[in-house]
C-alpha cells in the first residue's frame, strides 16, 4: 500500500508540472479562442534564454528578468507580426499561424543560443525528503514539492487577475467575440500583447522548472504533448481546470504505467492520458471546468 501511495503522490506532483505548461495554453485560449500550438516552443525558448543568460554569468534573478523581458518582446512581436493581420479571421487560421510560429520560435532559440543542452541549476535539490522516507518509506522529492507550491501560487495569482481586474474582464470579453470587444472600445491589440506576455511568463516558469530537471533542451517542446490531455480533461478555458486536469492525468498515467504497464509490455504512459481524455471527450466534451458551448438555433 505504501508503494501505491508513493506512485500516487509522485503522479500528482508530476501532474503539477504538466499543469504549469497547460496554464500557458489556457491563457491564450481564454483571450483569443486559439489553441496555441507554439506553447511548447515558448517553454523551450524561455528555458534556453534563462540558461543562456546564466551561462553568460548573470545571477539567477538577473537571468530571470532578462528572460522575462525576452518573452515580453516575443509576445509583442507575435501580436504585431502574426496576430494583428489576422484579426477577425477564422480561428483555424490563427491556429495554423501558431503552428508556423512554433517552428519559428524553435529555430530562433537554436540560432540565438545553439542547440546544445544547457544546465539549469535553481539550487533546489531533487532528492527524497529524508523525513518522509524514514517515517513512511515513501519517496517524495523536495523539488516536486517546491514546484507544486510555485504552480499553486501562479494559479491563485492568475485566477485573481482574470476575475478581479479590469484587464482580466477585457480579456474575457475579447475571448468571447473579437468584433464585439472592439466595438465597445477594448483595445484588442493591447490585450493580445498582454496575454502573450503573461503566457510567456508562465512558459518561463515552466521552462525553468522542467529545465532544472532535464536541462534546457529541445525535448522541452514535447512537454506540450503532456499538456494536451490535461486541457481536454480540465477544459481549455479554466485555470482551475488546468490544475485539476494535471493532477488527474499525472496520477492516473503513473498508476497505469506501474500497475497496467507490465501486463501490456510497459511504456504506456505516453498514450494512456490520451485514451483517458478520449473517454472524457465522449462524456463531457467541454472538460471538467470548461464553458459549456450553447448554440442558438
Amino acid at each position, binding site marked *: 500500500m505504501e508503494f501505491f501511495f508513493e506512485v500516487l503522490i509522485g503522479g500528482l506532483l508530476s501532474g503539477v508540472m504538466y499543469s504549469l505548461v497547460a496554464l500557458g495554453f489556457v491563457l491564450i485560449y481564454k483571450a483569443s479562442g486559439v489553441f496555441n500550438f507554439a506553447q511548447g516552443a515558448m517553454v523551450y525558448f524561455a528555458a534556453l534564454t534563462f540558461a543562456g543568460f546564466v551561462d553568460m554569468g548573470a545571477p539567477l534573478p538577473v537571468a530571470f528578468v532578462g528572460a522575462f523581458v525576452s518573452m515580453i518582446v516575443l509576445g509583442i512581436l507575435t501580436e504585431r507580426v502574426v496576430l494583428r493581420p489576422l484579426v477577425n479571421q477564422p480561428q483555424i487560421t490563427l491556429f495554423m499561424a501558431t503552428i508556423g510560429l512554433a517552428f519559428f520560435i524553435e529555430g530562433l532559440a537554436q540560432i540565438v543560443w545553439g*542547440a546544445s*543542452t544547457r544546465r539549469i541549476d535553481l539550487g533546489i535539490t531533487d532528492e527524497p525528503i529524508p523525513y518522509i522516507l524514514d517515517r513512511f518509506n515513501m519517496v517524495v522529492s523536495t523539488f516536486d514539492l517546491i514546484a507544486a507550491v510555485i504552480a499553486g501560487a501562479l494559479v491563485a495569482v492568475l485566477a485573481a487577475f482574470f476575475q478581479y481586474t479590469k484587464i482580466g474582464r477585457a480579456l474575457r470579453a475579447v475571448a468571447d467575440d473579437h468584433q464585439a470587444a472592439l466595438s465597445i472600445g477594448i483595445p484588442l491589440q493591447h490585450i493580445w500583447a498582454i496575454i502573450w506576455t503573461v503566457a510567456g511568463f508562465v512558459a518561463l516558469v515552466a521552462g525553468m522548472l522542467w529545465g532544472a530537471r532535464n536541462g534546457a533542451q529541445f525535448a522541452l517542446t514535447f512537454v506540450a504533448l503532456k499538456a494536451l490531455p490535461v486541457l481536454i480533461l480540465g477544459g481549455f478555458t479554466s485555470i482551475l481546470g488546468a490544475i485539476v486536469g494535471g493532477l488527474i492525468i499525472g496520477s492516473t498515467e503513473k498508476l497505469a504505467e506501474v500497475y497496467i504497464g507490465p501486463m501490456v509490455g510497459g*511504456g504506456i504512459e505516453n*498514450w494512456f492520458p490520451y485514451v483517458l481524455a478520449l473517454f472524457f471527450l465522449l462524456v463531457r466534451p467541454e472538460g471538467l471546468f470548461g464553458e459549456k458551448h450553447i448554440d442558438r438555433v
Partner: protein
Amino acid sequence: MKFKKTLFALAATSALFAGMPAAQADDQFVSLLSYRVGPYGNNGISVFGGWIDYMKLVNAKGGVNGVKLTWEECETEYNNARGVECYERLKGKSPTKGTMIHPVSTGISYSILDKTLADKVPLVMIGYGRTDAVDGRYFPYAFPLVTTYQMQASAMLKFISQRLGGKETADLKGKKIAFVYHDSAFGKEPLEVLRAESALNKFEVVEIPVAHPGIEQTAQWQQVRQAKPDFVIFWGWGAMNSAGLQAAQKVGFPREKMVGVWWSGAEEDTVPAGPGAKGYMAANFGVVGKDIPLIKDIVDTVYKAKQGDMKDESKIGSVLYSRGVLHGLITVEAIRTAQAKFGKRVMTGEEIQWGLEHLKIDQKRLKELGAEGMMPDTKVTCADHEGSGKVMFQQWDGTKWNKITDYLEGNRTLVRQLLDASAKKYAEEKKIQPRDCAAVDAGTETGAANKKTAKK
C-alpha cells in the same frame, strides 16, 4: 516591392548554395546524414563536428593518398523518413553515390538497408544499427562495425558482475538486474541477449521500458525502487539520459549502480543532470580527451587555421566528438584499404565494400594516426562484419569521464548464435543465398555478390 522580392530571391538562392562543396569527379564524396537541430541535435553537433574536423585534417595533409574528401550534410533531425530522403538526395551528388553511408541512427539504418544493397553502397553502422548484419554472408553491404549492442550488453553483464565482487557473468547467479530502456528498435536490440544470459546464468532481469522521448521517468524509477535491483542497465538516447539520471537521484537510487549504453555516456547526458550524474558509469569505444595526439593535431591544424566545425570548442575531445572523429577515421581507413587493392584514386561503393571487409585497425595503426586507445582493435572479415565486440567502461566524476576498465568482451558464442539465427531468418524471408566467405577470404569471389534465388 519588386526590389524586395528580388532581394529575397537572391538571399534564398545564396542560402541554398552556401556551404555546399561541389563534388568533383576526382574527389571522394562522403554523404553525411546529420542532425544538428531537433531533439537529438545536441548530440549530433559533437558527432558530426568531430567527423568533419577529421576529414578536414586529412585534406589538410593531402587527402587519402592524394584523393581529397568532399562532403555534404543533409539534416535528418534523426527522423527516418527524412533519413531516407537525404540518402536518396545525396547519392545523386557523385558517381560513387556517397562512398558509404553512416545513418547514425538505428531507425534510418533499418529504413535504407535494402536501398543500400540495391545501390551497392556500404551501410556502415558504428556502434548501432541492424546488428544481425554481423553475418556478412547474408549482409554483404551492411557493417555494424566495432561492437554491436548485443556484445555490449553481454560485456556489461560481465562488468556488473565484477562491480558486484564476481569475475564472470556466471557470478551474477541469484542477482537482479533492472533494464531501463528506450522503448524503440534501439532500446529493444539487447533484450534477446539479456534474456538468454539470464536463463544461462540464473539471474533475474526486470525490463522497464521508457516511452519516447523519456523526459518524465518518475513511474519507471519508482518501479526500479520497488524491484530493488542489484544494478541497473540504462539504455537511453537524447533527452532520456539526463532525465533518467535525475529521476534516479529523485528516488534515491545510487548512480554508482547504474551503467549506460555508450549512447548514454557523454557529457551531453551528464552535465545537464548536474550532481545527479556523479558516479554514473557507461560503456565507451575507448579513451577520450584533449590530450590525445590526434585531437591535438586537429586543434593545431584545423582550428588554428580557423577551419574547425565546432562553434563550442570546449566540446573538442568530448565523448561524442571523439566518436565523430572515429567515424571519420574508420571511413578514411576503409577508403585507404580499398585503395591499396584497387589503386590510389576515387573508390566506388563496391570497392569500398571490399575495403571494409578487409579493414584492419589495430593499436599499432591507431598509434600511427595518433589515436591509440580510442577504439578497440578491429579486424573485419566476410564472416564478421563487427570486427571487435569489445567495450571499455568509464565513470563520471562530476566534471569528466574517466576510464575505469580495460576492454571487456561478453559471451561471443552466445551472441553470435542469436545474431546468426536472426540473419538466417532474414535471409529466408528475403530469399537470399549466403555468400561463401571462405572464397571471399581467399579472393576467388569478389565479395559483394548477392544472389537471390528464383521465386518458386
